[in-house]
């Protein structure tokens, strides 16, 4: 898991316009598949997982989603990020009967999380910070997002 590969401008989409969570997930997958970061099987498995184990989260003032699946469908660990023009609903991880209106969706394509506990912990803790989520929402370029992440990671 190389830090430089984890966050790349080409895996970031800003003001993405999609109507459903499936469309958002597919758009993110398209980026990761184009760079050969994930296998074709990644999409179907993320969609399947999302139905049974939803990834919508409320992090104080922000509502996000972190779709992902097992590492076996990943070629190279990386994280795709989309900020949405209009929030898209995802079911809540804490209570699948509830929905969150996600404005930021992060597709975590991690090859073997078990061997990178520290790094994963750092990444998730970074995304728990209100300043970081606010920065993501208000960023105007992909470059700004990369800088923000580098600053806080």
């Amino acid at each position, binding site marked *: 898991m190389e830090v430089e590969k984890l966050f790349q401008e080409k895996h970031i989409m800003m003001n993405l316009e999609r109507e459903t969570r499936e469309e958002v997930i597919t758009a993110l997958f398209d980026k990761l598949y184009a760079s050969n970061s994930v296998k074709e099987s990644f999409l179907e498995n993320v969609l399947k997982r999302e139905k049974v*184990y939803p990834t919508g*989260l409320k992090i104080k003032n922000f509502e996000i989603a972190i779709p992902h699946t*097992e590492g076996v469908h990943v070629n190279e660990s990386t994280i795709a990020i989309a900020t949405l023009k209009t929030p898209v609903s995802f079911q809540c991880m804490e209570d699948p009967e509830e929905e969150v209106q996600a404005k930021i969706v992060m597709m975590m394509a991690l090859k073997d999380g078990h061997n990178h506990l520290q790094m994963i912990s750092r990444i*998730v803790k970074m995304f728990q910070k209100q300043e970081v989520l606010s920065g993501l929402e208000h960023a105007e370029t992909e470059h700004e997002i990369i800088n923000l992440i580098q600053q806080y990671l």
Partner: protein
Amino acid sequence: MNKKKLVLVVCGAGTLTSVMASQGVEEGLKNNGVKDVEVKVGRIDDIERFVDRISVLVCTMNIRTKYDFPVIRGTAFVTGDEEAQEDIINQIVTYLKENE
């Protein structure tokens, strides 16, 4: 010979949220001076595999099955809700102490 107690932490994919929760649980148990407990990360299918050894199950998703051991939601380790995290650790520590 007493086997180490097992706290199993599971999520759907076994890759991300369970990793976060297990880190939080391990740290929390250590800070509370709890020893002789193994914290293991797994997927939902691992519950059956370890069902005879589990003392506490921590999960980041909804589990409806009733077990003999407590099932505690660990999503607070993913959202960063520190108060809720403390609450989870206290629940685990209390249960382990009461069932030594």
